[in-house]
Structure formats: structure tokens, C-alpha cells
């Protein structure tokens, strides 16, 4: 235990030096660290959201909505399909997850099934691996009733692509916000984890992610006024009553509109959109692709002097009157907007609509001030705890205690160095983990030192006592620390965010503290022992 081969000594010294070198950038300002020559490490420890401020959002894609939409679309297309072949039917509708329809004449049943089968579309991605798999199954039940259901593959595929698209759209929207280093990851089946550090306005982030942003252009129904409907009038079939997006201070809509359900042009044909000014009012300008431009041109040509509604997520943003046909494929949306509102609206239109709404399941936002306070408090606690433990060790074990103190200092460098290399995230509980490690790191030394004392009491020489002390304590140290490591690993695997940060520092701390206590302290003490050859150990 007391002999170190020269290569081992060198290796140990190099490891300690590496810890120091990798720690240094953390004591420099970010600019200085970045300006270091390339051969020097310049990575700093990543601060968690709780230390640098930022937002953590766990979103759920309501992917069931896209399946529901497909079913609704099926109902809408079964109708013209049957009518087109003059097939008499009744009771067409959605029952649970199936579209059902009853055919009046049994002899038309086969034709109806055939027509409905034509409505299927191929499953994208082809999960089953079978070429040409279709997305619906048509079955005849109870003699003349037809049940149309989506196949399991089709449902899975729709959900999968909805989630993937959502992640893409979320990424685009957040990138548009211009924040630095956002994290956007899929989590589990249908969740998206969004972490945005250093955000000034977390409410805006939520507002932007909370909108599906499906924009459509629809005609306003002038046959009846909203007031008449509110007074009990019947909404014409094919139209609906919509609220204005603009709100009164109490949250109620400023205005109501009767709008035709049929979509004139859909917003997914937009190719660009930006916030600008018109007559000193903030407005959103947009541009269609060629298909959208043609449709928009045709629709405006046919409906000059009629109002149309720009509807975003079932709310009317504005309802201008078409003064003349708009054939150029560009337009503007004006209304009672603030600059921020037009910026957000154009951002949403640029980034595109979400295939399904997002639900915020969890939010943790920390302001930059609290983060800075936590860092400051953590630093102070670390330094004081460090000094307290060092003084205590020196008083308890004298020279040996000082060796342990030096090892403790090296330990701290190794932890910081390891965190920097691994680019692990340091969180507030992580700082607590470091402080706890300081307390526990001396444990291994204490075990050894107490053991050496015992060996001295049995009358051993300094060399023999050291040798026996280290050898006997080693098994205990490894057993004791391995069990704590189990706890750290489980915390890492099960925990999230800040807790994971705690597990990382605790785990790294356990490994480095065993190394420094067992190897580094021993090296120092052996060196001292060989030089001075004391008659008795000062412990």
C-alpha cells in the first residue's frame, strides 16, 4: 500500500493537474474564457435553469385531435361520395371511433362499400411494412349498416407524425424568438420538453406555444346578424357564430361575427409573413404560394364588396371588406393591434400551424434575479463549509488533517473539472451535493486515520501502521461509498432537472472523493513519511 511506482505517481499528479486546468475557465469571465488559446480548455460548467434563470415547460401534444379530425373529414366526404352515386342512406355520423352509415337499399350496399373504400388514403411511413396499406377499414354490420374505422397503423402513424410535426413547429417558433440555446426534446410518447434559458418574458413564450395558429379565410354570413342569433335566432346551417380575438379588459370578446364554415383559403398556403406598419398602424403582411394566391384571387374576385373573416384558432382576428380582387397573392391583416401582437402573429404564421393543440403539463420558470441570488448563496455556503471542515480536520488530525485538507481542495477541483468536461448541468441542489460531498469526502480519510490510530495503539511502527491502516480501511471505504453511489445512480435515472443535477454532483463527488482520499492523501503521506522517517506518527 505504501509503494507507488513512478508512473503511478506521475499519473496521479497529472490527473490532479487536469482537474485544476479544467476548473480554471470557471473562475474567468465568459469572454476571457472564450478568448483562451485553443489548446487550453475553455468550457465552463453549465448552469441549470434554476441558477441562470429560464423556463422549463413540459408540453403534451393532444394527438388524439388529429385522429378525430380524420374521422370528421371522413364523415364529410362519405356524404358527397354516396350522393354522387345516388345511393340512398340514413344515420350518417360518428359513433365513438367509427363512422357509421346505414344504406337504404340492400342492393346498393356493395357499391356503397366500394365508394367508401375509395376515400381511404395510403398510410404514410408504412409502419406495417406492407406496400399500399390503406388507412381505413370498411365493414358491414347488421345487414345494411357500414362501419368505417381507422386501422391501428393509421392511428399510430397519424399520432406519430402529429408529434413530430409539433416538435418541428415548436422549434421554429422558439427559434423565431431568438433565445440562446433552447432545448427541445421529445419525451415519452406524446410529450415535448422545452427548456429556454435566460428568457425575459416567460408569459410570451407560453402564449406563443399555446396557440395552434390555424389561420383560415372565410366569408362573413350577412343573412343574419350576430345580435339576432344572440337574441334567439337560428344560425344558418353552414355558418357559425365566432368571437373576435380582440378582448375587453374583462376578457369578453369585443365583437361577434357570423361566419360561413366553408374555408375560402387556408393559412397553410402562406409562405411568408412579417410585421410592418401601414398608416402608422402595426399590421401583419403575408404572401401566399402560387396555389394559395390563385384561390385567394378567385375568391376575392367573386366576392367584391363583401366582408371576409380572417379566423385564427376559431377566433376572428379581423373582418375587412374586399374592396377589389386581390390577385397578387399578398395581403395585410390590420386591426387594433399592438406592435407586440403583430410581431407574435407574424411569427406564428411564419412558423406554421401546429397539427394539434399543445397542453402545458408542467412549468418551472425562474427569473434571472433569483438564479443569481442562488448562485451567490451557493458560493458563500461552499466556501464557508469548506473552511469549516478544513479547520476541523486540521484540529482533529494535525499534519494528517492538513494532507486531507489538501486532498479536499483537489477534490473540489476534480468535481468542477469533471462537471466542465462532461458539460453536466450544475443546479442549486447540485451545489448542495457539492457541499454535502465536502462533508462526506473527509469520511474516507477519517476511516483511514482512525484505523492508523488503532494500529499505532497495537504497537506498530509508523510504516506498518500506515500500511495496515490503509489496507484495512480500503474495503470499508469501497463498500460504504458504493452503496451511496447506488443512491446517486437511482436519483440520476429517476430524477428530472435540478434533482438530476444533484445526482450528478453527488455521484462525481463520491468517485473523486474516494480517489483523493485513498490515493492522493496516501501519496502525500507516503512522500512525507519517506523523507522524514519519523519515530512516531503525529496523528
Amino acid at each position: 500500500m505504501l509503494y507507488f511506482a513512478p508512473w503511478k505517481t506521475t499519473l496521479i499528479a497529472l490527473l490532479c493537474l487536469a482537474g485544476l486546468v479544467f476548473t480554471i475557465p470557471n473562475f474567468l469571465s465568459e469572454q476571457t474564457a472564450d478568448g483562451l488559446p485553443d489548446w487550453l480548455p475553455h468550457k465552463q460548467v453549465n448552469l441549470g435553469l434554476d441558477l441562470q434563470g429560464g423556463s422549463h415547460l413540459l408540453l403534451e401534444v393532444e394527438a388524439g385531435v388529429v385522429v378525430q379530425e380524420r374521422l370528421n373529414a371522413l364523415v364529410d366526404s362519405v356524404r358527397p361520395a354516396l350522393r354522387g352515386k345516388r345511393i340512398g342512406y340514413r344515420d350518417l355520423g360518428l359513433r365513438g371511433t367509427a363512422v357509421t352509415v346505414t344504406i337504404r337499399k340492400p342492393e346498393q350496399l356493395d357499391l356503397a362499400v366500394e365508394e367508401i373504400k375509395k376515400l381511404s388514403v395510403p398510410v404514410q411511413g408504412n409502419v406495417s411494412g406492407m406496400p399500399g396499406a390503406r388507412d381505413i377499414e370498411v365493414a358491414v354490420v347488421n345487414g345494411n349498416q357500414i362501419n368505417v374505422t381507422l386501422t391501428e397503423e393509421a392511428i399510430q402513424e397519424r399520432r406519430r407524425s402529429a408529434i413530430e410535426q409539433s416538435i418541428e413547429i415548436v422549434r421554429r417558433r422558439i427559434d423565431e424568438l431568438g433565445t440562446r440555446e433552447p432545448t427541445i426534446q421529445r419525451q415519452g410518447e406524446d410529450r415535448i420538453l422545452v427548456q429556454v434559458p435566460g428568457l425575459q418574458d416567460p408569459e410570451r413564450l407560453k402564449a406563443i406555444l399555446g396557440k395552434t395558429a390555424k389561420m383560415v379565410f372565410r366569408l362573413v354570413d350577412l343573412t343574419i346578424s350576430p345580435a339576432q342569433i344572440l337574441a334567439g335566432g337560428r344560425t344558418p346551417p353552414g355558418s357559425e357564430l365566432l368571437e373576435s380575438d380582440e378582448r375587453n379588459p374583462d376578457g369578453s370578446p369585443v365583437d361577434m361575427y357570423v361566419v360561413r364554415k366553408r374555408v375560402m383559403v387556408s393559412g397553410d398556403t402562406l409562405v411568408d409573413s412579417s410585421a410592418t406598419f401601414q398608416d402608422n398602424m402595426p399590421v401583419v403582411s403575408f404572401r401566399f404560394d402560387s396555389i394559395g394566391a390563385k384561390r385567394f384571387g378567385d375568391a376575392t374576385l367573386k366576392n367584391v364588396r363583401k366582408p371576409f373573416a380572417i379566423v385564427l384558432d376559431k377566433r376572428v382576428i379581423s373582418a375587412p371588406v374586399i374592396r377589389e380582387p386581390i390577385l397578387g397573392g399578398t395581403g395585410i391583416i390590420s386591426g387594433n393591434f399592438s406592435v407586440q401582437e403583430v410581431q407574435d402573429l407574424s411569427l406564428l404564421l411564419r412558423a406554421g400551424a401546429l397539427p394539434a393543440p399543445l397542453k402545458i403539463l408542467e412549468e418551472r420558470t425562474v427569473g434571472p434575479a433569483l438564479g443569481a441570488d442562488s448562485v451567490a448563496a451557493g458560493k458563500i455556503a461552499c466556501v464557508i463549509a469548506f473552511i469549516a471542515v478544513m479547520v476541523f480536520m486540521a484540529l482533529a488530525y494535525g499534519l494528517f488533517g492538513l494532507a486531507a485538507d489538501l486532498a479536499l481542495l483537489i477534490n473540489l477541483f476534480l468535481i468542477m473539472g469533471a462537471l466542465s468536461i462532461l458539460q453536466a448541468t450544475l443546479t442549486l441542489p447540485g451545489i448542495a451535493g457539492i457541499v454535502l460531498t465536502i462533508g462526506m469526502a473527509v469520511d474516507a480519510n477519517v476511516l483511514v486515520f482512525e484505523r492508523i490510530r488503532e494500529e499505532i495503539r497495537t504497537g506498530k511502527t509508523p510504516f506498518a501502521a500506515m500500511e495496515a491502516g490503509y489496507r484495512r480501511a480500503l474495503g470499508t471505504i469501497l463498500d460504504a461509498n458504493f452503496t451511496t453511489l447506488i443512491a446517486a445512480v437511482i436519483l440520476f435515472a429517476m430524477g428530472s432537472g435540478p434533482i438530476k443535477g444533484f445526482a450528478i454532483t453527488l455521484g462525481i463527488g463520491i468517485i473523486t472523493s474516494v480517489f483523493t482520499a485513498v490515493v492522493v492523501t496516501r501519496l502525500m503521506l507516503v512522500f512525507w513519511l519517506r523523507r522524514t522517517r519519523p519515530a512516531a506518527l503525529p496523528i
Partner: protein
Amino acid sequence: MFQIKLVPEKTNVPFINWRKPAMVCSAILVVVSLILAFSPGLNFGIDFRGGILIEVQTSGPANLSDMRSNLGGLGLGEVSLQEFGAADTVLIRIEKQPGDAAAQQAAVSKVRGALGNGLDYRRTEFVGPKVSGELIEAGAIAIVLAVVLMLIYIWFRFEWHFGVGAVVALVHDVALSIGMFAATQMEFNLSTIAALLTIVGYSINDTVVVYDRVRENLRKYKTKSLPDVLNLAINDTLSRTTMTSVTTLLALVVLFVFGGAVIQGFVFAMIWGVIVGTYSSIFIAAPLLIVLGLGDRHRKGEDRSDDKRVAKSTS
């Protein structure tokens, strides 16, 4: 040179003789903890209960009653305000809102609207019911998994008596820690789970050190009775046990005082856990080896123990 000696060089404290009162005392405490955990119950934070937590800092000392009446009129159900660490910092807790996720977000906006922009929103946390349920589950699984893995490890490294003894001591520590949280009504949240797991790690660390010495002494002193061997092991490691506990507590107390209000609950749990863990290694884990019937295998036919329970449990 002046030296601290927390424990005299050679001690012979008859810890093992106190095992019966200690075990009775611990059993009572565990039962009381469990009762407290049911009534009044744990004060679950939003991590486990769902709901909204907002920390704000005002420019001057916060006027709690003003804010309370201000927020009370919003119709958000139970709203609790609490000064947090400093006079100008207020923690606002709002219970889970009926309705979907949008209703929760609406509540956050309402609070922001009512309080205005004149103050600093230091922290906003919202946990939906779905996630809070999963967090409880993950936390419970983590603790059980940790305990089981440690049981297996110690079983593997020692013998089953040690594994079971260590795990009983662990369960004791976790139970008393939960009891402490129930008794003080301190908030029980995700970081509490982390603290509990660390307590588990620390306590097992302590127990393993004592057990290691027990194993060594069992081989060394083949003629000594088991209680004597245990007592010797505890006394041999007593100096280390106290030194380590004191240094760890030293670091934790510093963290408690200087680490800021956010982690105070976390650190408090660990301070308590270190105390309980140290106690249980000495008074629970070691004596349990007698109850579990260790010893007869090591000294076949030469059991000199005067303890009737050993004789009984070996049959």
C-alpha cells in the same frame, strides 16, 4: 499542537445493553411517524399535489394582507401567502384549478394581472395533475428501488442478516424523516425525495462501516459472545462515526444558514437524516444482528451468549 478529540481513544460504552429501550423507543417513533403521516398528513408541495407556486419580490417590505385580499378576490380557491426568506419576498401558492391545463395558465395570468408589473416574478412553477401523479410514483419507486438494491448489495457482500438489518435501519430512517416532515408540516416536494435518497445513502454508508467491523471482529474474536463483538465493533468505529457525522453536519448547517431559502427544506431533511442515520447504525442496525440470529453459524456449539432471544431465534 491542540487537537480535537470528540471521543476518547478507547471507549467501552455498553451500547448493546441499551438495545431494548432503544428499539422500543424507535418502534414507538416509527409508529408515531406513520400516524402523523396519515393525520395531519404530509404537507405536499405542488410537485405532488398539482397547483401553482409563484415567488415574487416587492421593492419594499411586502404587504401580505393587501396582497392576500387582492388575490383572494380572484376566485381561485385556496390561495396561501407566505414570507419566504426575506421580508420583501413572498411565496404564493394556489391550489389546483378545476378544468384543464388552460385553466391553470389562466390562473397564473390572473395573478400577474392582479399584482401588476411593479414586482419581480422570481419563480413561477405549475404542475398539472397528470405530472404530479407521475412524480409521486417515480419518487416512491426511486426510494424502494434504492433500498432493494442496497439490500442485494449488502447481502452479496456480507450475509443476509446484515442485508436485512441494514434495510430495517433504512426503513426506520426514512420513516422517521417522513414523520419529521409530517410533524413540522414542512413542505414535502421533489427535493425532499432527493434528500430522502441521500439519507438512505448516508445511513447505509454509516451502517456498512459498523457492519464491516462486526464482520472483522467476528473472525478475530471467535470466542467472544455476539453482543460483545457488536459492542466492540461499535466502540471501535465510534470515533469515526462521530467525526464523519460532525463534518457532514458542519457542512449541512453552513448550507442551511447561507444556502438561501430555496434549498432550506432540502438541507433540513438531510440534517435530520444524518442524525437519525447515525443513531440507527449504532442502536438499530447493529443490535438487529442479534435479533436476526447471526452468530450461531460463526460459533457452532460455542454460543456463550446469555441472551435468551438469541437461543430462541436460532432454533
